């Protein structure tokens, strides 16, 4: 186990929120076809409120802090926020589309000691990228920004969200990342929109195409390891927990709402009304998320994939129960290994149903009303 993993496990065991993802705005200068956010400003936290929140997070033991959005640079005070975060000695990562980063901004990011900048690039073909972001010339601006950041010696990661309209472009983007000297990550997850609209799910790569991705060593590393059939779970495995959501990680929206994860729209409290540590330690919702062990899962506890599945409790919650299966992850487990999941077997399915037509009940991540 690496030192980083050891520390992560220690924080998990102690219930310390070692990592927090904070969206500072939902406003954005791009209108990506797959985006799940409502870009209107419904009352974002002020600079002072965010600084106060950061003070509280530092006191709570948060070390890894990711700023995201929306587009973070839509906030004119963003550098002031990052400066405060770095003064508090957080390890800061920024997720951005980078179109507003020029030489001056790149230099400032380096001066502030930001650890990593993750940038969305959808295709190596400008016309495909721009068609997804709906912002003309966004590809050129983003790539130019990556070069500025690299000139400053900064660590950059290209995040390549794959969907139907760019599913064949991953190798081109990977090559582009290598040319630019940056890391590459791929994500085939498309999330329903915040207002419950599931139409964006039609952009999800059809399950039948997932094996091509999961069996590509350039994307997943050791295919033998990644696609290995699941091992039977031990008793210890069944005592285990799904992921770090609510245990050592949480998400804070631009409105101050605290959730177990960015993909887990269960409101647990608002830092405009309660102290962060009060929410983290005593929120009944957070405690419930924290209590769920593999053996408590209604279907997955008897699934052969239970120890290796990427089951997301947030997506399961969106589907109806945080203890239930996450269909998208059932699909991934099946197409990764070829072994049917318990969820499929119970429904008498030999292969997963297409997910794009789901009518799952969705709960919107939206601001909780705060008295003026």
């Amino acid at each position, binding site marked *: 186990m690496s*030192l*980083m993993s050891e*520390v992560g496990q*220690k*924080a998990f065991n*102690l219930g*310390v929120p*070692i990592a927090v993802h904070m969206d500072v705005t939902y406003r954005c200068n791009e209108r990506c076809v797959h985006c799940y956010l409502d870009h209107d400003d419904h009352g974002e936290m002020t600079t002072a409120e965010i600084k106060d929140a950061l003070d509280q997070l*530092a006191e709570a*033991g*948060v*070390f890894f802090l990711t700023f995201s959005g929306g587009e973070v640079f839509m906030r004119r005070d963003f550098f002031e926020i990052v*400066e405060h975060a*770095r*003064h508090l*000695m*957080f*390890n*800061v990562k920024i997720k951005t589309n980078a179109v507003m980063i020029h030489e001056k901004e790149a230099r400032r990011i380096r*001066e*502030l*000691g*930001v*650890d990593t900048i993750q940038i969305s690039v959808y295709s190596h073909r400008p016309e495909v990228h721009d068609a997804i972001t709906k912002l003309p010339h966004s590809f050129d601006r983003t790539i130019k920004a990556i070069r500025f950041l690299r000139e400053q*010696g900064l*660590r950059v990661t290209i995040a390549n969200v794959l969907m139907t309209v760019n599913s064949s472009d991953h190798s081109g983007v990977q090559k582009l990342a290598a040319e630019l000297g940056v890391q590459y990550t791929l994500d085939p997850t498309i999330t329903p929109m915040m207002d419950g609209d599931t139409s964006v799910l039609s952009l999800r790569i059809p399950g039948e195409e997932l094996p091509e991705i999961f069996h590509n060593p350039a994307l997943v590393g050791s295919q033998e390891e990644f696609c290995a059939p699941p091992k039977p779970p031990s008793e210890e495995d069944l005592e285990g927990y799904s992921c770090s959501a609510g245990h050592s990680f949480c998400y804070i929206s631009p409105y101050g709402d605290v959730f177990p994860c960015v993909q887990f729209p269960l409101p647990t409290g608002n830092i405009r009304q309660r102290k962060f540590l009060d929410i983290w330690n005593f929120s009944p919702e957070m405690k419930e998320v924290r209590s769920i062990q593999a053996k408590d899962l209604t279907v997955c506890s008897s699934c052969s994939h239970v120890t290796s599945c990427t089951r997301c409790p947030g997506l399961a919650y969106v589907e109806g129960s945080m203890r239930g299966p996450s269909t998208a992850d059932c699909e991934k487990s099946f197409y990764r290994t070829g072994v049917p999941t318990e969820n499929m077997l119970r429904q008498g399915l030999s292969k997963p149903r297409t997910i794009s037509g789901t009518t799952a009940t969705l709960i919107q991540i939206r601001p909780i009303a705060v008295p003026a």
Partner: protein
Amino acid sequence: MPENCIYIARSSAIAARALAGEMMVMNSADSTFFTLNEVATAIFQAADGHTALRDIVRDQVCEQFDVDPEQAQADAEQFVAELSSHGILLVSSQPLSSEAP
């Protein structure tokens, strides 16, 4: 550089946070990651740039932990040299200020 005039300050490039009494430290320049034990954490926290290392060892280490002063000074110097080589601590014969990001 004589040991009695070493001043140490934390670099502005680092991130740090205490977890159950031990300090996690990461240098964003090269992503090196360390965890410091309680004694090292005490020295790291006292690295304000204008307190001499010998005073930190005397007031923070010998005062709080049951250690031999000479051994503590030698260990502290070795620890400072290692963290300095990774850009975590700045070392000078003159008082210096912790860099603001």
